Each structure stands twice: as structure tokens, then as C-alpha cells.
């Protein structure tokens, strides 16, 4: 099935920088707004990280606030609540990775096998819908269905079966938030995998079918390898964002299960930094998270390359 190609390496660009700039000026001009947005909203605010090394006072500004060196980090690493939040973040991220990550891939494969286009569109639309709900609405729906006074528990009560504490049990909170995330986001997440599936050459399926490969063989030898690049890319991105498990979802349900179960790094920075005017403390927590995330994404990218995949970029 494989074909040997004799691609010639692309000739090196011999044009001077000025010539290339002149040649690509229209394209470069079109990127200016995006680059400007990126600079203004992503790079310029990075200067705010200085506050992590200060006792920042908004009234006197960054330049006039007192420098305290690593004092905020010392306090942070001495704070048991911080370590609790970090542990929660990593645990919740791990649970989501194991339980959530495969779902969109499986959904995409299933959806791809539906032959009726109308039916496929219908299923797709229904699966996408919860993505457009806010977390407030999504959690309200869960509360109305599974809360202590929700439909399920009132039914159980009225039949003397006893209640099932789903929404306020800290021990099963990881499963609850993962279920909510799957319900809300799994449908939307299949888009990228559907695109990867659409890019696989259908001739390969026909050839393998002619050669006698069954459905599972085709899945294993054609579909999954065809999707592997995208799966690895999404995995790298997911690992890079391992410390960003969300904010609103935890903020809203913090009182329901208690702060020890629900506090993640982002809510920690909010409650123990911003909400108490201790901006520098929150900035230190945020900077710590960013550094760890950078290391994670770097490590995951290395891993992808080690497996022969592209990762974030082609090596």
C-alpha cells in the first residue's frame, strides 16, 4: 500500500531579506492586527509578573511598589493551602486526562461510521449544543437533576430508596467535574478529530478492504495512524495545560464540596491573592503555574518527537 516517492528537497531561498519582505509584504501586512493583539494582550501584560517579586500596591504602581525578592514565593511554598490546591489541580487534571481525553476520539470514530449525513449532522448538533452553555447553566442543570433536592433524589426519596449524594460529596468531586466536562465539552472537542478523519485518503480503506482487512483492522492500521498526529498534538496541548483545569466550574461548586476538594491553583490565586488585595501573592502563584506549565509542554513536546510525531512543531 505504501508508495515510494522521490521528493526533491526544496531549494534554499536565495532571496535577500529585503526581497522577501517586498515579496511577502501583503501577507505580512495582513498579520499585523493579529500580531498587535498578541503583543498588547499577551506579551505586554507579562511585565505584570514583576509584581510577584514585590509587595504590589495598585495606588503607587509597579515601579514604585516595594521590592521583596522571593518573599512571596517563600510564603507560597510554606502555605499548606497552596500545596493542597496544586495537588487537587494535578489530580483533577490526571482524572480528566484519563476519562475525558479518549471520549472525543471515540465519539469522532463513531460519528464517522454513521453513513446517513442527516443523522450525523443531527447528532453532531446535539453534541455541540452544551458547549455553548455557560458553566452556571450547566451546573444548574446538574443540580436540578442530581442535587439533594433534584429530580433523581426526590424520586429515590419518594420510593424510600435513600438518597445519592452526587453534588456535595468531596470524595467523588473529581468524577463529578469530569462528567460535567464530558457532557459540556466532549461534543465540541470532536471537531478537530473529525477533521483529521476527513483527511485520511479513502483509497486506503478501499484497498485494505479488497485485501480482506476487516473493520477493526482498518481502524487499527489506517484510521488510528492517520489520526495519530492530531492526537499527539492535542495530548501535548492538554499536558501543557495540565495546571489549567478551569475556574468557573470550581468557583461555582466550591461551597458545595468545600474548598479543600475544589480549590485549584486558579481559585487559590483568586481567593488568597486577589480577593484579599494580596495581588503579589496571587501573581506568585500564577507565575509558578506558568513555569510548571511551560516545563510540562516542553516535556510533552519532546515526548511526541521521541515517538516520531510532530508535536507542536515539526522537528
Amino acid at each position, binding site marked *: 500500500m505504501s508508495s515510494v516517492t522521490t521528493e526533491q528537497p526544496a531549494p534554499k531561498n536565495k532571496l535577500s531579506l529585503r526581497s522577501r519582505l517586498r515579496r511577502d509584504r501583503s501577507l505580512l501586512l495582513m498579520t499585523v492586527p493579529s500580531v498587535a493583539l498578541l503583543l498588547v494582550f499577551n506579551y505586554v501584560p507579562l511585565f505584570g509578573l514583576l509584581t510577584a517579586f514585590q*509587595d504590589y*500596591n*495598585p*495606588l*503607587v*504602581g509597579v515601579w*514604585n*511598589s*516595594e521590592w521583596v525578592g522571593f518573599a512571596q514565593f517563600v510564603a507560597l511554598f*510554606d*502555605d*499548606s*493551602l497552596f500545596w493542597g490546591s496544586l495537588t487537587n489541580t494535578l489530580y483533577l487534571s490526571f482524572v480528566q486526562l484519563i476519562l475525558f481525553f479518549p471520549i472525543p476520539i471515540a465519539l469522532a470514530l463513531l460519528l464517522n461510521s454513521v453513513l446517513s449525513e442527516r443523522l450525523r449532522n443531527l447528532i453532531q448538533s446535539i453534541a455541540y449544543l452544551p458547549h455553548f452553555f455557560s458553566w452556571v447553566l450547566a451546573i444548574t442543570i446538574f*443540580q436540578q437533576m442530581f*442535587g*439533594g*433536592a433534584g429530580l433523581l*433524589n*426526590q424520586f429515590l*426519596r*419518594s420510593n424510600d430508596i435513600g438518597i445519592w449524594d452526587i*453534588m*456535595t460529596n*468531596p470524595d467523588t468531586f473529581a468524577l463529578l467535574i469530569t462528567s460535567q466536562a464530558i457532557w459540556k465539552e466532549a461534543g465540541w472537542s470532536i471537531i478537530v478529530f473529525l477533521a483529521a478523519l476527513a483527511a485520511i485518503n479513502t483509497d486506503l480503506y478501499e484497498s485494505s478492504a479488497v485485501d480482506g482487512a476487516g473493520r477493526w483492522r482498518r481502524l487499527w492500521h489506517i484510521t488510528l495512524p492517520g489520526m495519530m498526529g492530531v492526537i499527539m498534538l492535542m495530548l501535548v496541548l492538554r499536558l501543557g495545560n495540565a495546571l489549567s483545569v478551569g475556574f468557573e466550574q470550581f*468557583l*461555582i*461548586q*466550591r*461551597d*458545595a*464540596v*468545600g*474548598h*479543600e476538594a475544589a480549590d485549584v491553583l486558579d481559585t487559590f490565586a*483568586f*481567593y*488568597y491573592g*486577589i*480577593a*484579599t*488585595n*494580596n495581588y503579589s*501573592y496571587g501573581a506568585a502563584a500564577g507565575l509558578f503555574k506558568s513555569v510548571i506549565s511551560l516545563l510540562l509542554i516542553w516535556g510533552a513536546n519532546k515526548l511526541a518527537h521521541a515517538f516520531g510525531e510532530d508535536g507542536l512543531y515539526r522537528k
Partner: protein
Amino acid sequence: MGIELNRRRFLSTTVSVAGLAAMGGLLSACGGGAQQKTGANSDALKAALPKYVPSSAIKADIASVAGGPDILTDPGFLTYPSNPVATVSGIPGKGGKYTAVTPLWGTIPPADNSFYQAMNQALGVTLDMKPADGNNYATIIPTMTAAKRLPDWIQLPNWWNANFNVGELAGSQLADLTPYLAGDKIEKYPNLAAIPTGAWQAGAWGDKLYGIPSFSSGFVIAGGTAYRRDLLEARGITADQVKSADDLMNLGKELTDAKGGVWAFDDVWTYMFPSWGVPLKWTVKDGKLVHKYDMPELLDALEWHHKLATAGYIHPDALAGNNADGNVRFYAGKVLIAGGGAGGWNASDHQSGTAANPNYRKGFFDFFTKDGKGEPRIEVGSSSRILSYLNSNLKPEQIEELLAVANYLAAPYGSKEYTLINFGIEGVHHTMVNGVPTATEEGKKNVQPQTFPFLASPASVISNPGADVVTNDYTAWQAANVKHLKKPVFWNMNISLPRSMATADAGQAVEDAIKDCYHGKKKVSDVKEAINTWKSSGGGDKLVQWTDENVLQKFGTGQ
């Protein structure tokens, strides 16, 4: 969210996070950044406080009842004065142009609308009103102060004093009003002079006046424990049968019918803990300052609330932290006893309740001690929580012009000015229906009671046009309970803490543990552990020491 306006929390926030203080000298050694102000009861402040000259322009239907110095019930009005009297002669302004920013929890009216125009005409100034979303207010203001771009007139609710750094703003970006209002000088502005002195103290920093109070009251408490009077009385249960925490717990057992979807309680912690003798924040024992976290009474109170939750008497949605629907549960009769913010016992509540059940009637239990013995002690909050400030860049004549405008806005309930400020022009923004100003469509769109009154307003009254039962019940409850109200330690004192103590002062970890405990998720021993951590590594002991040395020892209790 965390910083959003939560009326149930406001009292503890204002007193606990505290802003600055009204008192003495500048303490330059504390904290980073600019100098901090703190103090209380200094002679200089006492000299600066405006003289109180009560207004006799309008007589209330239900008179105030005094409960002690600076403590009294709000007067009640059963009818709206039919012939509003004018309390301001002439036009207060001289044609100046100013901008004003206030928070608004509601729909923002269109700019330069017919109501604003009518007000500007009456005030004699061009006041460019810029109401801002109250839910985001705490994040909007710091950007203005950091850029030193405050408007000419701004409202800063005192529960956000710490967020806004009002202590540092006072004198730097906010104008000192002492030269214009101190002592007898306020008599130039009779309606402002009718605002009780305590309310002015709530807006004082260092030993100077800065804030102009709105909605001042001598009965400022977080609220009480509300109950469905109609439903309980139908079962033969009256409020006077509840005289102790045990009585209430027993009532929980009697009223809860989980299978039928009815629970006795919603969250009541905020309004019940004083029954155990727990102060809002501080108390003084044997001359020594004690934080409430150091009091065994706090743990006793938590023990009872923990039991209330684990016994299954609290609605599951309340335990899940869904407070937003608390009123809906109460109106629907799914909950029969709930924490009731003082501001929530009004005509609007009555309308919502009767829409759900025509027999709806709300009541508050009288205050009691945990065992029904002795005198309950309910601590009052600041005499005013809504304070507006003038920009320090204004010239003296501009400040005088705006104070004259504030005097107009502070006209008493039912006066000609009050009617315009709160209901707009008759025939345009409201019409009189059965003697009650009733908004027209134009009025509903443009006249918001949270715009001009948030810059200055008269002392609070109880008035619920169309719902006299509320006015009668609420004034009667206030009159029966005013004797239990006491001033807390550091009453009306604004304390500007060093920045390094902000975290300890907020006590977020302890507050989280307390909430988890009264929701039944943590034991009292867990709270005790959180308190121990707060005291040692959390800076709690340092906070107590600093406050003792720098506030209590220097300025006294303020009581």
C-alpha cells in the same frame, strides 16, 4: 463573584475588612507604600464631626424608638405625604459641570435621559451621571485610582474600603471636607446636618471628614432569622414560642419533610451566631483585645450549626452553596426559616412572596441567647455603608457647590426634593395612584433609586407603599429588638491595616473552614485546626497584637 455584592455578607465584610479609621495620627511605619491612617475617637476627630440638627420637616407615622446612644429604630411611613414640602430654597448649583460615578445593581438608564435633565435643571449643575455595573464595581474602581482618574464625585461602598484602599485615597485623591462641614459649619447645609453624627464618622479617615453618607441608620444590622409567618401560624407555631437554639432545632425536626420537598432551614449562620455571644469581629476581655476566632463561643455556635446541617434540616441546595435561589425556595414554601437580610424585608419581597402564595407573610424571630437565658447582644455595623467622595482636584468653590447639591439630595423622605429624586416629575415619570407615587413607563426606564441617592440621601425610613403590613411588622420587630443592639468594639472606626496583614485580616482559610462546617462537611475540630494555623503561620496573632497596640491602646474601643 468573590468580590461581588453580597448583602448577607456585607456587615461582616465592612467591619472585618474594615477600611480605615477615623482617628488619630499617621502611622508611617506600617506596611508598604503610602502612609497608613488609623485611629479612633481622637479629640481632633470629635471636633471635626458635624453637628447633628434633626429635621422636623416631615412627621413619621411610626416614630423612632431609641435603644441607646446612636442606636434607634428607623421611622415608619404608612402614607406618602400628600403635599410634599420644599426643604431647599432656590437652586443649589451655580452652573458647574461635573461627572459622577455610582454602582448600580440593575438596568443602567440611558445617558442624558429626561430624568437626568430634570434633575440637572433642579440642581442647577450639569451632573454627568455614569452609573456602573455594581457586580463589577470592585474591579472598575482600582483601575481609576491607579491611573488617578477618579471622577469629580464617586460613591465607594464601605464594604470595599480595603479593595479600594480608601485610607490611602483619603487626602490624596479624595477631598477633605472638614473645612466645609466640621461642627457648626454644616448648618449651612440643613439636610446634611440632619444626618446623624455617627454616619459622618463612618466616612472619616485619620481625623478628617471625607465621606458623604447615604442611607444612614441607627439600626444597622446584618438582618435576622426570617420565617414564613403565614405557614407557621397555620400550624399553630408563633415566634414567641422560639426562645432558644434548642427550640429552633426542635422546630427544624418538626417542619422538615424531605420526602415532600420541604426543609425547615436555609443558611442561617450569619444571623444566628450572635446568639452564642460571638461578636462581629473583636471583643475586649479584661482590657485585652480578643479576636472572635479566639473565642470558644464561636466553636459552640458552629457545633450547633453543624448539627443542624447533618441532621438534614437544611435544604440541600443551600448546602450546595446555591444562595442565589434562596428567596425562590422561601417564597415557594420549600424552606420555612431562612437568614433574612435587613434590606430584604420590604414591599418588593412582599410582592414576590404574595405572587407565589397570596397568604405570604414574612416575620423575623426576636433575638435570643443560645440557651434562652440572659440578654442577647446584637452588634450594629457602621451607621452608613454607602459613602460618596469628592475629588481632591476640585476647587473650594466647586466643593461648596457640590455640597449644596448633596444637601438637596439629602432632603427628607416625602419632601418635594425627595419626590423628584426618587420618582421623577409627576405626570412624566410617575403618577399618584391611591396617594402613592407610581412609576410610568418613562419612569421605569429612567428613574433609578440607585443613582442620585447613592451620592447623598437622608437617613433611612421604613416605607412600603402598597404593603403596609410589611411596614407595620418591620417597625414593630425593630422596636421590640432595639434594646438588644449594642455598639461593637471599634464601632464606626475605619482602620487602615498594613498591607502585610490583609491576608490575616480576611482570614479566608478560616472563613472557608467555618462555611464547610456549618454546611456539615467539616467538623468543629477542623475549624479549630484552621484557626491554629491562622494564629501561627497565618499571621493571626500578629494581627491581634498590631490592632491592640495601634488601635485599642491608642484610640480605645470607640463604643
